[in-house]
């Protein structure tokens, strides 16, 4: 009895979470433009998607900005962590507090502030301004995920490497960097997701004629949404799912290997 209730409970949660996404996927294969009537299976919304230069442009923009912003933020953020670690604790705490403010700040405030900044320095708004804005809001997340990896333990490992005769550069590359790697990777992935996800800041810092997926959908909604957007969303969802499965399978295999050699 208890078990059945538990199962029903899980089922309800799953339905709430995935039914909307399932609806979206089903509708992307619908022949008609209707959002409620199923008229038959078709791939022509996918065709429209790949033929639409507007949408393909938005996809390329979204992902190229996300990758570039995440890369730049990761490099800048990691360097910042190295600098901060060399500071006195009090200075570092002050800096850390400044680092945390942008993350707590409402996106709308950050967006408008960045827009005003671009207007003030008369920086033309377009691809570069979006990239700059995204890099800016990603850096704090990188700092937050890398900083904890650099601690007393890494200091000791660094000293141990020096003790064994390594130069500071070599010790950093071979010993400290691998220790930071998990933090750097999660900082990069976090930045990438934040950038793909962002709408508000992009909306305020983009110029006319440039769109990312989120701003494109927003403008489409105003003139009536087309099912080719469902197709786009489906592709994004399936891609994320596949990546997630690959990462999990790999982790599983690694764990098993580790257990076997133990």
């Amino acid at each position, binding site marked *: 009895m208890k078990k059945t209730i538990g199962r029903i409970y899980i089922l309800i949660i799953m339905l709430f979470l995935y039914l909307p996404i399932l609806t979206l996927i089903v509708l992307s294969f619908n022949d008609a433009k209707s959002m409620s009537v199923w008229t038959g299976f078709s791939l022509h919304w996918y065709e429209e998607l790949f033929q639409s230069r507007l949408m393909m442009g938005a996809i390329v923009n979204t992902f190229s900005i996300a990758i570039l912003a995440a890369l730049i933020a990761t490099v800048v953020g990691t360097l910042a962590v190295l600098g901060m670690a060399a500071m006195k604790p009090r200075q570092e705490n002050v800096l850390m507090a400044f680092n945390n403010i942008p993350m707590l700040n409402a996106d709308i405030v950050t967006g408008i502030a960045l827009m005003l900044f671009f207007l003030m320095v008369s920086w033309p708004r377009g691809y570069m301004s979006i990239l700059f804005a995204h890099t800016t809001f990603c850096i704090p997340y990188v700092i937050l995920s890398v900083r904890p990896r650099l601690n007393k333990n890494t200091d*000791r*490992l660094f*000293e*141990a*490497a*020096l*003790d*064994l*005769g*390594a*130069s*500071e550069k*070599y010790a950093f590359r*071979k*010993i400290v960097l*691998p*220790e930071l790697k998990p933090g750097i990777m999660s900082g990069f992935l976090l930045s990438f997701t934040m950038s793909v996800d962002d709408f508000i800041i992009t909306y305020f810092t983009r110029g006319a004629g440039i769109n990312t997926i989120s701003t494109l959908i927003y403008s489409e909604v105003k003139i009536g949404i087309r099912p080719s957007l469902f197709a786009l969303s489906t592709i994004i969802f399936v891609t994320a799912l596949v990546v997630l499965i690959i990462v999990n399978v790999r982790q599983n295999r690694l764990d098993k290997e*580790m257990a076997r*050699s*133990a």
Partner: protein
Amino acid sequence: MSELIRLEHIVKSFDDTMVLNGIDLSIAENEFVTLLGPSGCGKTTTLRIIGGFEKPDEGRVWFDGKDITDLPANQRHLNTVFQNYALFPHMTVGENIAFGMRVKHKSEQYIKDKIKYALKLVNLDGFQNRRIDQMSGGQQQRIAMARAIVNEPRVLLLDEPLGALDLKLRQEMQYELVRLKKELGITFLYITHDQEEALTMSDKVVVMNNGYIQQQGTPEEIYDEPVNAFVADFIGDSNILDGQMTAEKVVRIDGVDYPCIDGTEQGFPPRLMVDVVIRPEDIDIVPYGQGQWNGTIISKLFIGVHYEMLVQSEDGKIEWLLQNYDQHDVGEKIGMKVDPENIQIMHKPKSEAESAIELDI
């Protein structure tokens, strides 16, 4: 034995806290030297200065006749076994041991042979492909040793290497370390706060407190002839008492005169106020009234080999700590006596520094 390391008046402070107050120390080739002291006494800082991880504010460090005070850590011919081993977690056991040799561009064959030799030496034959987190604390300790000694250092610095191990393993590793030292024939500079470890393994013990060296000597010298109350208290159990020299080679403790072997010649003239140390195992129990003084047993504790007893003197002023193989009951009245050579007379602390040390106990 020729001198290998010399510290010359090393002074070091962090922010405003004095950590080392002028350390002078000489370490001979092939010697097993232990720096012993409570936490915060400056022993680790001394080791880090020799290792090249800290720069002294004043003073010089000499190594084999050369001034190495300003030489960076990676150019010194010594290796360290760190307190928490500091093994590289993303490398296998073999890669950890190979690290120092890779840095020096040794041939792969040389590295392979050396890893094998080192693992055999620390009794971990065949473990080179294991991951570090698969190894127990004791094994990690051995790997840290292996990683250090494959570089053929002239001195091995050991920073409380046994601190994280349980008692039995710690005792085993003490024998291992002495064996390793003999096989390698190199100098060991060992740091610990465990007096037993220090006495068991060392050729020379250096007792430190508050950034000063209190006493240095062989384990026997340190134990039998502590120079002050701090050393006596830190090394083993002891009765530390106020006394006064009443005549030549006679000291009065709690109204009783005891003959001893220190007199004017040793710097203890009559009427001088002194500290007296009597080790608990040096007090003999005799029938009541037949000893030099009497007392009543107020507590008794069996601690393995012997009994430990607290005995209150007749006027109730002093509690004596006694260790004896024979059993006596609580409440029993006993007589006690002590041989003159087992009474250690020490000067009372005089200088400000010494009284500061005194306060810290």
